């Protein structure tokens, strides 16, 4: 696979990598969330996001004559197109994890909405289905944002959102940034763009791809 894919495949890989890596990060709360309901919620959300990643990878794989698994797990760390927001290791910081979930869902809703108008029927149809599933994620994220905003964790949560905001802007491009600013009620600032990877990424890549690298071509 070449480093630079065709534009529409490039977009699919960005979407798929975002969903896969965020799903992986969300799953890190499995077993250690503040209470049982959130163990279940974060695990379920992680599973759904990775399901979306699979659907995007399958569309991309058909274009690139490869498979979803190869795209998800057989690339070098520098070949992933995910936004730095999803790479950050935020486990053990609930306020930041909730802030990321809320910011991500807010940005994701904007781009998924635009994908529904795609002239690629498979992508438009997929976006419409994903939008229905994401409505549950958005409800969960909004509920937690309201809860932390009204609690004694208010300042801690506000600091987390401030810190992650430039990363959130990096999820979308062009006019979608303006829409994101309006949706989040925040000012435009220089974004942490895709392309560079944060220092938390290599360790996550090692973990994500370990089994496939250990047993090349293995199947289960």
């Amino acid at each position: 696979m070449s480093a630079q894919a065709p534009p529409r495949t490039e977009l699919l890989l960005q979407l798929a990598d975002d969903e896969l890596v965020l799903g992986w990060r969300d799953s890190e709360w499995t077993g250690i969330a503040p209470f049982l309901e959130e163990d279940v919620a974060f695990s379920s959300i992680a599973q759904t996001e990775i399901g979306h990643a699979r659907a995007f990878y399958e569309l991309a794989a058909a274009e690139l004559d490869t498979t979803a698994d190869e795209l998800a797990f057989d690339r070098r760390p520098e070949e992933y197109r995910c936004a730095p927001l999803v790479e950050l290791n935020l486990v053990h910081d609930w306020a930041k994890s909730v802030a990321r979930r809320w910011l991500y869902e807010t940005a994701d809703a904007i781009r998924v909405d635009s994908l529904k108008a795609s002239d690629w029927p498979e992508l438009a149809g997929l976006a419409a289905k994903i939008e229905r599933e994401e409505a549950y994620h958005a409800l969960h994220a909004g509920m937690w944002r309201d809860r932390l905003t009204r609690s004694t964790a208010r300042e801690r949560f506000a600091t987390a959102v401030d810190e992650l905001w430039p990363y959130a802007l990096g999820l979308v491009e062009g006019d979608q940034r303006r829409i994101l600013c309006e949706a989040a009620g925040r000012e435009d600032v220089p974004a942490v763009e895709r392309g560079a990877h944060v220092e938390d990424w290599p360790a996550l890549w090692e973990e994500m791809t370990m089994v496939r690298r250990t047993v090349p071509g293995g199947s289960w």
Partner: protein
Amino acid sequence: MSLASALTAERVWEALADVPDPEIPVISVVDLGVVRDVQVDGERVRVEFTPTFLGCPALDVMRTQMADAVRALGAEPEVVVVTDDGWSTDRISAVGREKLREAGYGPPTPRPTGPIQLVQLQTGAFRCPYCNSIDTRLDNLFGPTACRSIRYCRNCRQPFEQFKTI
């Protein structure tokens, strides 16, 4: 004349009606409404289906079981996953809904028309599958699988799994 030459879509539908949902075996993939189309072309059978949620871990098992059911009819299966919004939980049959309720799952409420909205927080929209009371509350939007929430019946004090509307 081979067996397969007499194969009709109707016979394939009948065979698929015996394929249980891997996670809720009381209901078949046909009653669950996930089978969208069956096309028979000689000895080849194309089955289109849509998972309730894209991340459903039962997807591959469903695909394998449906392919096996087609093979048992002597035909060559092609099972295709269609990932668009043309499917909704409204497609679960009346028989399927009753089977879900009997097994202790609240069947999904109808998909609202117009913009996407969630009825999960409304009171009165969900009926307890055990005692039929509508005095139930949402305990967790997320449940043991992507397609189910956890609700609690205040009347009979029983938690139950509520199918999400998609």
